[in-house]
């Protein structure tokens, strides 16, 4: 072999095209090349030529045996080998590598142009078969190009395998006539077949699938054989006993006359997808079930509530009934207590007047006083007993307050005459209010008797009232005993009387406490006001609820 000049394109250096050249033709990373040839000169020439550009790093070996040693100890991107070498031919070297699953790009570079050698080389897995040419420089440029192609192909295959691995998707080709089934690397993994084995025949593969899925495959097979693309999902059970869902998309490759030559397919492991889908379905099912359960619980709750309502209503009716019974009892009790008191109170003073024995007369006085005391107690205690049950009815009829006070004055006509007190009803004639008639009447009555009780002869008791922003204000003032500042609040306590020494037989310290409880019952307030002892006092009651002085009464 002769030494040839450097290729023409390399003799005219031009800065810009270099960059273009490198991007367009140069491979990323330096390619590491093993050149195997028993021709020492050629090896030397080859090495110098390929290393010039910096794109290749070249090792050489003079024989197949030495090549194997180098391949075992270093990593190469491509092997270029002579065919005819002593000890081991290039094809024998290739076969040894392929037998070890070594897929390194392999180019045979030889003088032997015989067809049977070329065919043998191709069958052994050679990438390129290049005849040694006399036009050496262009030959070497062509070889460099073929190296790049072979490496690119390997890189592309590796990328595809990596992508397939990543996606758990394999691809395959089935040739119809020969039945040859060609699998990508990932297919072996998907079907748990050792990579060194031949792919099983189609029927063998189908047998791996679930019976049900096999049956479902038949119409799919028919569609594909009729030239349609089709998708089919089947389950296989793999060595570790788990189920694997495989989705296969098939596309027939047709001849120009429409007959099917082959089927191209991809098969993907969609187990995770399936699990997620199943989980989603399960979740949706659960959700529906849970909603139904919630609905059921809701209904039960409603039923329970209804029952509770009924029970509460029953209980309320029962309580109402008992309260009514109690009210009737109190009314009856009042009647039954007062009736026997009537002869005692009525006849004792009568007897006393006829009694001439002063000792007996004095005893009768005691009985008369006690009877009066007893009567007062009965009245007040019954009022208190009623207070505990009297719920304000908030009657809808407007109450004419002036009339109500007039009635109270009439009821106490005798007491007024006895005490010699002047009573003035200054409540406007047209004042109407909405309140509980019974409770309001009781408030007025108690305030009135209280004022009468503590007014001296010749004193005055005066009623006034006016509507306020949110209700009614009533005032009862007297010119009587009056109150010290410290008594203004205590006067409403039960059984409190201002001056125990002046306690009258008909005073029990209950009247004003009844007034306070009544006003509170109506949501109102009561307070006492007095300039001081002996200077009279005024009791102010405020009550909520509509009150008006319009002639038609409150709306």
């Amino acid at each position, binding site marked *: 072999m002769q030494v040839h000049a450097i290729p023409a394109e390399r003799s005219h250096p031009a800065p810009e095209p270099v960059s273009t050249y490198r991007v367009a033709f140069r491979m990323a990373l330096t390619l590491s090349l093993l050149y195997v040839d028993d021709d020492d000169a050629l090896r030397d020439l080859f090495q110098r030529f390929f290393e010039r550009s910096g794109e290749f790093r070249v090792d050489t070996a003079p024989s197949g045996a030495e090549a194997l040693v180098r391949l075992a100890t270093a990593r190469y991107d491509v092997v270029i080998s002579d065919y005819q070498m002593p000890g081991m031919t290039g094809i024998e070297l290739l076969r040894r590598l392929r037998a070890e699953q070594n897929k390194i790009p392999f180019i045979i570079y030889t003088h032997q142009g015989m067809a049977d050698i070329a065919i043998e080389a191709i069958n052994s897995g050679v990438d390129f078969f290049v005849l040694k040419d006399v036009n050496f420089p262009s030959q070497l440029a062509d070889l460099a190009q073929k190296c790049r192609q072979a490496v690119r192909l390997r890189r592309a295959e590796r990328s595809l395998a990596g992508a397939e691995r990543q996606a758990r998707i394999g691809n395959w080709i089935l040739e119809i006539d020969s039945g040859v089934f060609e699998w990508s690397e990932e297919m072996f993994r998907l079907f748990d077949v050792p990579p060194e084995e031949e792919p099983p025949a189609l029927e063998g593969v189908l047998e791996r699938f679930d019976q049900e899925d096999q049956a479902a495959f038949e119409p799919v097979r028919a569609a594909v054989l009729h030239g349609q693309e089709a998708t089919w999902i089947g389950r296989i059970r793999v060595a570790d006993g788990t189920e694997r869902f495989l989705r296969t998309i098939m596309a027939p490759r047709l001849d120009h006359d429409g007959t099917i030559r082959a089927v191209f397919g991809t098969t993907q492991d969609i187990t995770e997808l399936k699990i997620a889908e199943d989980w989603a379905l399960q979740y949706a099912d659960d959700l529906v079930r849970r909603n139904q359960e919630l609905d059921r619980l809701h209904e039960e709750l409603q039923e329970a509530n209804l029952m509770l309502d009924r029970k509460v209503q029953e209980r309320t009716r029962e309580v109402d009934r008992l309260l009514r019974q109690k009210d009737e009892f109190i*009314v009856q009790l*009042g*009647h039954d207590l*007062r*009736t*026997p*008191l*009537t*002869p*005692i*109170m*009525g*006849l004792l*003073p*009568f007897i006393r007047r006829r009694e001439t024995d002063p000792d007996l007369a004095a005893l009768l006085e005691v009985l008369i006083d006690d*009877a*009066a005391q007893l*009567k007062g107690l009965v*009245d007040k205690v*019954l*009022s208190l007993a*009623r207070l505990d049950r009297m719920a304000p009815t908030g009657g809808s009829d407007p109450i004419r307050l002036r009339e109500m006070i007039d009635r109270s004055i*009439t*009821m106490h*006509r*005798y007491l007024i*005459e006895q005490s010699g007190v002047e009573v003035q009803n200054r409540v406007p004639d047209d004042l109407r209010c909405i309140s509980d*008639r*019974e409770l309001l*009447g009781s408030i007025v009555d108690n305030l009135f008797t209280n004022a009468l009780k503590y007014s001296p002869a010749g004193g005055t008791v005066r009623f006034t009232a006016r509507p306020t922003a949110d209700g009614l204000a009533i005032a009862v003032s007297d010119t009587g005993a009056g109150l010290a500042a410290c008594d203004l609040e205590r006067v409403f306590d039960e059984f409190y009387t201002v001056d125990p020494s002046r306690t009258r037989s008909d005073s029990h310290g209950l009247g004003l406490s009844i007034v306070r409880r009544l006003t509170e019952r109506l949501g109102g307030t009561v307070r006492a006001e007095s300039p001081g002892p002996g200077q009279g006092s005024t009791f102010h009651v405020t009550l909520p609820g509509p009150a008006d002085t319009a002639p038609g009464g409150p709306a």
Partner: protein
Amino acid sequence: MTPVMVVDDDPRILLTVRTILEAEGFGVVTARSGRECLEALADGFAGLVLMDIMMPALDGWDTVRECQKGGYLPRIMIVMLTARDVPDPKMEGLQELVFDYITKPFLPDELVSRVRKYVDYL
């Protein structure tokens, strides 16, 4: 002097009122029930009627209504005797027919002075 009729189912009340009023010189008629009261009115009684409210069978208010029906009101004055201190729903519409109320128990002086006043009106 104007006669007074006391209507009460309780003989002790009848005795009390009669004793107090007779001592003051009033002529007193007693009736043990609303029925007896109406009988006395039918017999021509005219004057003051002190009427208990809570009586069995015909109670005070029923009797007042019967008095109105019988046309006796022009010749009598009715004052109710009551041991109740809460308004009675039955009094509705009948209040206007009675002149006053006396609550039990009462002192003899109170009864006498009231009765004197009522009688003065008659």
